């Protein structure tokens, strides 16, 4: 597996595309700014949302049990899964009971986290992702590069070619309107034929046992209402106490995500319709472990709006796939080490720690601070690459001794003056895509001594 830096290098090799990616996500961020500024109570809403989420995290088992009891009273079957594997087994056993070989799935980052598609495909089940962006990446045997905009790494030419291969659209046609229509026709057929539908969950209300799914396309509803069996998969942190809290979260979610006032459909599922079966799978998969980590507990407040992706100067220029995780971006980089520290040791370093992520977060997660906490944790555990450890130690030694620091500065200036090729070459990462500055004649200290003392 490529590290974040290695994968980013491939992504930025195409400068035009990198610029497009950067500008497009910044445009989404700007729409978020506009939408938030139009609400006078925006900051009060963020505070409220943050407090509700912190309250939930301090009472999680009680709320889960309350939700379970109310959902069961509504006629919904509730399942519990410790980890990804158990989640996949539960979903498969429900499908198997109905003897179906095909299912439609709307967007669920949890099922991506559990690698459900790969598991089911191994069992011979045909999984059809129905969110347009997800269907595109599924055709291409890729994974979503963004949790809200799954195909944001692709251009319309790419989608046109993919649809030409898989849906038989005319070669060279790259009109978004035409391609969306082709997908609508293709997926309607799938919706009308599927007996089992899987959806994610945006919010689950303990007080009522209902859960809310938000989409713009209407794919979750087409799948769920036409199926005989609806399976909703959710992480245990998606619980909220009361129905009235939806007012707070739904006002924040779409505005933070895309700058929309609200998603087209905010669907509230409480009871199965007559003759339908409804299942909810509650998944831990490391969340109880993250809850126990004081510094990282607040990452469980996340409502998956991706505002932190869109604002991040690193994400915008490195693309989602460089994070090699289902949830990329700043929030993904603090969730990932909880799953596997060693495999994700690079991610907390894929940040400038500028703090923009924390500023836009609708539930006020201290994202950039947690990135910095992870860096300390991973370094302490000796998981960082040897070069980074050596470099940090050298820097610490150098910076802790004024005499050494002065001497190193002097040598550095002389080297850059006399042997510029030693720094102006491809071995020096700072030289890539930029000219090295000409070295100053003296250090600030030397200048101060001769001018002010």
């Amino acid at each position, binding site marked *: 597996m490529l590290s974040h830096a290695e994968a980013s290098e491939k992504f930025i090799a195409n400068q035009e595309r990198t610029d497009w990616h950067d500008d497009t996500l910044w445009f989404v961020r700007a729409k978020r700014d506009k939408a938030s500024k139009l609400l006078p109570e925006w900051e009060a809403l963020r505070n409220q949302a943050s407090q509700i989420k912190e309250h939930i995290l301090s009472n999680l088992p009680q709320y889960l049990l309350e939700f379970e009891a109310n959902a069961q009273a509504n006629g919904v079957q509730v399942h519990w899964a410790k980890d990804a594997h158990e989640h996949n087994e539960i979903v498969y056993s429900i499908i198997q009971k109905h003897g179906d070989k095909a299912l439609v799935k709307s967007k669920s980052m949890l099922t991506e986290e559990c690698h459900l598609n790969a598991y089911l495909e191994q069992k011979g089940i045909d999984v059809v992702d129905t969110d347009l*962006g997800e269907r595109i990446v599924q055709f291409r045997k890729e994974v979503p590069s963004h949790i809200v905009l799954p195909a944001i790494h*692709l251009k319309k030419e790419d989608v046109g070619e993919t649809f030409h291969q898989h849906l038989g659209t005319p070669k060279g046609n790259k009109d978004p309107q035409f391609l969306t229509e082709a997908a*609508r026709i293709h997926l309607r057929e799938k919706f009308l034929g599927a007996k089992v539908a899987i959806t994610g969950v945006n919010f689950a209300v303990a007080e009522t046992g209902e859960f809310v799914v938000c989409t713009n396309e209407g794919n979750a509803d087409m799948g769920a209402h036409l199926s005989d069996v609806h399976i909703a998969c959710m992480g245990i942190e998606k619980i909220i106490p009361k129905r009235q809290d939806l007012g707070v979260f739904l006002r924040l979610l779409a505005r933070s995500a895309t700058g929309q006032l609200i998603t087209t459909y905010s669907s509230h599922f409480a009871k199965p319709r007559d003759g339908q079966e409804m299942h909810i799978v509650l998944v*831990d998969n490391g969340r109880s472990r993250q809850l126990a980590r004081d510094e990282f507990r607040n990452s469980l407040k996340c409502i998956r709006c991706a505002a932190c992706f869109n604002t991040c100067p690193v994400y915008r220029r490195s693309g989602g796939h460089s994070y090699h995780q289902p949830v990329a971006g700043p929030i993904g980089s603090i969730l990932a080490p909880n799953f596997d520290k060693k495999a994700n040791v690079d991610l907390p370093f894929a940040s400038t720690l500028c703090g923009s992520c924390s500023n836009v977060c609708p539930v006020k997660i201290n994202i950039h601070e947690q990135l910095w906490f992870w860096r300390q944790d991973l370094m302490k555990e000796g998981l960082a690459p040897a070069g980074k450890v050596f470099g940090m130690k050298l820097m610490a030694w150098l910076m802790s001794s004024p005499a050494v620091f002065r001497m190193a500065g002097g040598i550095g200036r002389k080297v850059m003056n006399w042997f510029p090729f030693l720094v102006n070459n491809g071995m020096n990462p700072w030289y890539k895509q930029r000219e090295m500055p000409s070295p100053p004649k003296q250090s600030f200290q030397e200048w101060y001594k001769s001018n002010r003392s």
Partner: protein
Amino acid sequence: MSSREEIIKALQEVKVPAKAYPGAFTAQVIGDDILADFLHAMVVVSTTVIQVKEAADAAPALDKHFPNMQRVRLNPLADGLSLADIDVLEIDGDFGVAENGAIWLDDSTLPHRVAPFICQHLVIYLSQKNLLPTLQEAYIRLGDKQTGFGVFLSGPSKTADIEQSLVIGAHGARSLVVVLTEC
């Protein structure tokens, strides 16, 4: 021990400092003209509004808007699947939200849950008296109403998954017309 017990036990073992529930949130009314805010939101979500005194007055405008198309009033007896072939489906909305153009529909007005999604074009009748300023008031209005399924619907279905180009008409209705009645 079942997974359920294991998860609950693991969560109970974590000592998280107690944080109180902050209580209900009171929204600040954005503008004092709810109707104007709602009409503005309708423009933002690409929805056509027909303002009439009574529901029946909308017929000529709807005829003009949907020329030569079959319009069907949602009928509890109709088969949900056959709705896929309907050009234009007409239903009643419960109440609307001025800040975002969302209209509440639930099992009490929808004999078939799939109806507002599967039809090609959707018409919702809504009384101007049933407009609320923000989602917060909407949930107060909803209270503890028990409903098997309910949806806040705001505009026609859409996607921007191909290069961020907005396309109206993804999987759900291709267009939405709201008939706003005075009574």
